[in-house]
């Protein structure tokens, strides 16, 4: 119990920023993947405990079935399925994380989906548990999973019309995307009806379109978004 006492020493040397650790000993996994699914997988990228590949959306279902059923790979568990939006004019990604007893790291499969026509094959025939994942992605991103028996909205009400997780869905006071870089107040002056002030005699009121921090103009059309730096 002596070690539990409060101790105030200098910051730990590991605290300094340092490069990511070398990739895991994933050689066996990478070899097996290249052997089984040579041309389908591309853009290998590894982290300290993750091996990552990209696939085409059209091939994702076959790749995942091979990963699950092949005896050497045996990725029997779907750990996560998530959708990522890269903004208007770009693409969607459906990201699957898989787990296997035989390999040391998580396997991440990134399937590319066209943003204008977001369709990808369902994997509920491989893992029943993908059902809620896919319903959530449909609800939040609007990605259509072909073959899914129950593609309804899961969180928002059935009459809701937009897809909140998309990048072009902007929160009412979206600090991150505002031209004022996070210092914008909560109010949205562009929504105020100022006509009665403008028409009143002796009152001058600059229209909201001329304001420098008018957020409505800045966040639409994807110009602000597409000009931002983003990962590959």
């Amino acid at each position, binding site marked *: 119990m002596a070690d539990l006492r409060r101790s105030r020493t200098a910051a730990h040397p590991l605290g300094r920023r340092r490069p990511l650790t070398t990739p895991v000993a994933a050689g066996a996994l990478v070899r097996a993947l290249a052997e089984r699914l040579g041309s389908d997988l591309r853009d290998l990228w590894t982290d300290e405990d993750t091996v990552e590949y990209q696939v085409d959306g059209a091939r994702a279902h076959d790749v995942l079935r091979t990963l699950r059923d092949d005896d050497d790979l045996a990725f029997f568990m779907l750990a996560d399925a998530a959708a990522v939006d890269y903004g208007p004019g770009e693409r969607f990604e459906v990201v699957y994380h898989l787990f296997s007893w035989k390999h040391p790291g998580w396997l991440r499969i990134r399937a590319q989906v066209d943003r204008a026509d977001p369709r990808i094959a369902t994997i509920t025939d491989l893992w029943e548990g993908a059902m809620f994942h896919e319903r959530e992605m449909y609800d939040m991103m609007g990605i259509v999973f072909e073959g899914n028996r129950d593609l309804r909205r899961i*969180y*928002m*009400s059935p009459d809701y019309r937009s897809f*909140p997780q998309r990048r072009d869905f902007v*929160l*009412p*006071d*979206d600090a991150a995307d505002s031209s004022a870089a996070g210092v914008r107040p*909560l109010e949205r002056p562009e929504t105020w009806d100022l006509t009665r002030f403008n028409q009143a005699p002796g009152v001058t009121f600059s229209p909201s379109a001329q304001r420098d921090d008018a957020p409505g103009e800045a966040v639409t059309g994807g110009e602000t978004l597409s000009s931002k730096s983003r990962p590959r």
Partner: protein
Amino acid sequence: MAVDRPTTGNATDPMPTGGHGPIVIPDQAGDSDLLREFGMDEHPQGGFHGLLEVIPTKADYILDLIRANSLWPLLSGLSCCAIEMMSTATSVNDIDRFGMFPFRASPRQADVLIVAGTLTTKMAGPLVRLWEQMPEPKWCVAMGTCTTSGGRFKRSYSVVQGVDRVMPVDVYVPGCPPRPEGLIYGMMKLHELVKERRGQWRTYVDRGPQRTRWEGDVR
């Protein structure tokens, strides 16, 4: 069964006071000093009167005391605050001390709605329906910052920014979540509110002028 009890009226004439029988208080009968102390007047033909003029106000006061000290909450938790509400109800913090333990599962048996947790747009309809199913008099306590203003989820696309946008609220308890002591303090405030008739439910049924202090209120 005829009981041989002393009366202050005239036994031979059952209606000496013009249509009304004499008002008899058996225990204190004969103790005129005590009855005078109660504020009753002696009737010229015998007996005392004036008790009925006193009872309506006192009964309201007593009803308010009863209401304030047996506020039964609705067993309704929305999210995180519900766990602290349960903690308030169970052994350690024991809100049973204030007559509040029976968390009623049916809104028709509940007096107070503790909105514990974030109210989303999807849940707003059912919550309003619950509130409208509760019989009057009823009170509403907004527990936690999410229900008072939206709190940390104020910017969200699916959160109602405070339950007072959809229903009247009597007491706001801030905190994320409030400690059980905080909720108990809010309930004490609600007791004051009920006793002074300052609650929101009077906006539905007007029950006379608002009073801030009651006769005989010794607080």
